[in-house]
């Protein structure tokens, strides 16, 4: 882990847009955040909130035919990523910044053995021999606790279970000691018991290697149990950011509050047999991102909304102790408890 000061990743006023037949989709609409060295930052939100597009923008994986980073800055170790050439980005990806996705099968090559794929990444980025690359692959499979790792090196992805494939993806992603690991819904496709194993593994490896993790998910349970700081996104914008304890202790944005009340919970006192309390709904739908959003994007669904909310975009303000929220009515929200 580098002892250099300052965040490892700085995203400033990022705008990422896609051209569609219905018009320009403002998928990410002015998002800023930092990732500190060695921390786990969660980005949470529902489908279409821009969380995955934010990740793809950092990795510069936005499909060129339809999308583009319209403006903003992404700095990794002080270096501006938005102006790098594709060649330069390729040298960075899988080496100093790496990623894992929801469905490992789509990111693994079906005709190459697991060992070859991990070794290839190491050989390409670190310039070592194939023999050393293969040795590294063996080490990595051990690290992610794949039993019988020597034999598994020579297996193909289809011979592995879903949980094991995700372990292989993690092994590959960490094989060149990256400073940042971007994990987009890494456990969403996995069964509950396997999800728990993978989350525990990610946290353990993060502590061992000092790699910062950006964890993108829709699952508040996963966020609560694995991250240190959380960014909440809605309709392409950051609406709240806080240390994880503070966010769950006192969510300040009406959207975050709504989300937390809408989920059925396992950890609250069991209710008497037969009674089923109503879940609190968030009325309405997410806005259509091809139309410009005036004011707060959540205003049409918000019970606190005023005329100001409908007309002026609320800035992010610090509500104390690093808890940022973009809401004009935060004082009223707070009092409403």
């Amino acid at each position, binding site marked *: 882990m580098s002892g250099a000061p300052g965040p490892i990743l700085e995203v400033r006023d990022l705008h990422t847009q896609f051209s569609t037949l219905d018009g320009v989709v403002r998928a990410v609409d002015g998002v800023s955040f930092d990732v500190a060295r060695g921390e786990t930052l969660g980005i949470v939100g529902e489908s279409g909130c821009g969380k995955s597009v934010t990740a793809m923008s950092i990795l510069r994986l936005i499909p060129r035919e339809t999308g583009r980073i319209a403006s903003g800055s992404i700095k990794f170790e002080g270096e501006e990523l938005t102006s790098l050439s594709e060649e330069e980005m390729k040298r960075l990806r899988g080496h100093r910044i790496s990623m894992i996705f929801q469905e490992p099968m789509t990111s693994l090559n079906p005709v190459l053995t697991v060992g070859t794929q991990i070794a290839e990444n190491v050989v390409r980025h670190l310039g070592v021999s194939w023999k050393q690359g293969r040795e590294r692959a063996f080490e990595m499979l051990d690290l992610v606790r794949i039993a019988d790792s020597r034999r598994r090196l020579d297996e193909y992805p289809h011979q592995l279970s879903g949980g094991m494939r995700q372990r292989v993806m993690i092994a590959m992603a960490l094989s060149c000691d990256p400073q940042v690991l971007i994990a987009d819904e890494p456990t969403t496709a996995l069964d509950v018991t396997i999800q728990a194993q993978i989350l525990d593994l990610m946290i353990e490896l993060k502590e061992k290697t000092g790699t910062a993790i950006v964890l993108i998910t829709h699952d*508040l349970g996963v966020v*609560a149990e694995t991250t240190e700081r959380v960014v909440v996104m809605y309709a392409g914008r950051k609406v709240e950011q806080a240390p994880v304890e503070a966010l769950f202790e006192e969510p300040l944005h009406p959207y975050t509050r709504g989300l*937390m009340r809408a989920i059925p919970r396992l950890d609250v006192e069991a209710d008497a047999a037969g009674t089923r309390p*109503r879940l609190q709904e968030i009325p309405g739908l997410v806005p259509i991102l091809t139309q410009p959003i005036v004011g707060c994007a959540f205003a049409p669904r918000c019970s606190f909304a005023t005329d100001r909310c409908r007309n002026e975009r609320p800035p992010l303000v610090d509500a104390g102790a690093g808890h940022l929220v973009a809401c004009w009515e935060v004082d009223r929200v707070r009092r409403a408890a």
Partner: protein
Amino acid sequence: MTDAPVLQVDGLVKHFPINGGLLQRQVGAVKAVDGVTFSIRRGETLGLVGESGCGKSTIGKVVLKLIEPTAGRIVLAGEDVTALKPGAMWTHRRRIQTIFQDPYSSMNPRLPSGTIVGEPLENFGIARGAARDDQVAQLFRRVGLRPEAMRKYAHEFSGGQRQRLGIAKALSVNPDVIVADEPVSALDVSVQAQVLNLLIDLQEEYGLAYLFISHDLAVMRHISHRIAVMYLGRIVELTDKRTLFTQPLHPYTEALLSAATAPDPKRRRQRKKIVQGDVPSPAKPPPGCHFHTRCLYATAECRVTAPPLLEVAPGHHVACLRRPVGGDPGPLSIPG
């Protein structure tokens, strides 16, 4: 809730053949459902929970008679429907309807939504023409859609609205039982709450029985009255939801509960006994208790003897050799 079960399933078995070799002979079988018994009363939700490959969705399909059971008995509203051929089953389809995870794939993209929802009314000769349109409009209102939306096509609706369409269609023939297979898994949380609330309201209004299939324990606890936990084709524990979540007796149930994440950072690191390893293949389940390969408490006996599902306490059924009838419900000891 009345006591007579509206759906009764006895010893249900569904094996899928595995063919192999040069002549494609049957060389084995995936025992997707391996002797399952349960019943559901009017107005009751029975949850079926388990991980992929446990057979929960296959049970749903067999109960709907979309696929034929290998063995066992299905009694729907007092009538044995196990052996009915598709033609004879048709009249019983009014009694049992289904809601899918992705209703979009079951909707004709070229038909207006009103026609899709009204199809069963015509098929079963319940209503035609203007009378049908009236009933469809009422159904739309009942599930929270505007009747004007009847002219719109499936792709013009959001995911949550499509699920409302699917519910309206299932409701149209006034069934006794609805099989709901992961009906909210594809929905965002804010929309998921709307659909769960709607399902509960409709159940209370019409006395519907739900067979609710899901992998999500929190959703399950919210909507179910009783819950059956499945592992590799068998029910390992079946009881009312309060007991299941406060006093689980089967080691697999305990593992599932401890693996579930909760939206509470203070609970982090409190997870204790997470099972290791993967679910074995249902084509080659381990002998004895299927769970013994991952179970902390397994003894030599568990490796050879399949545990029967026993009512160890009133209404609490468990299939575990270490949980005998009237046994101590306290924590199990790990064998030396």
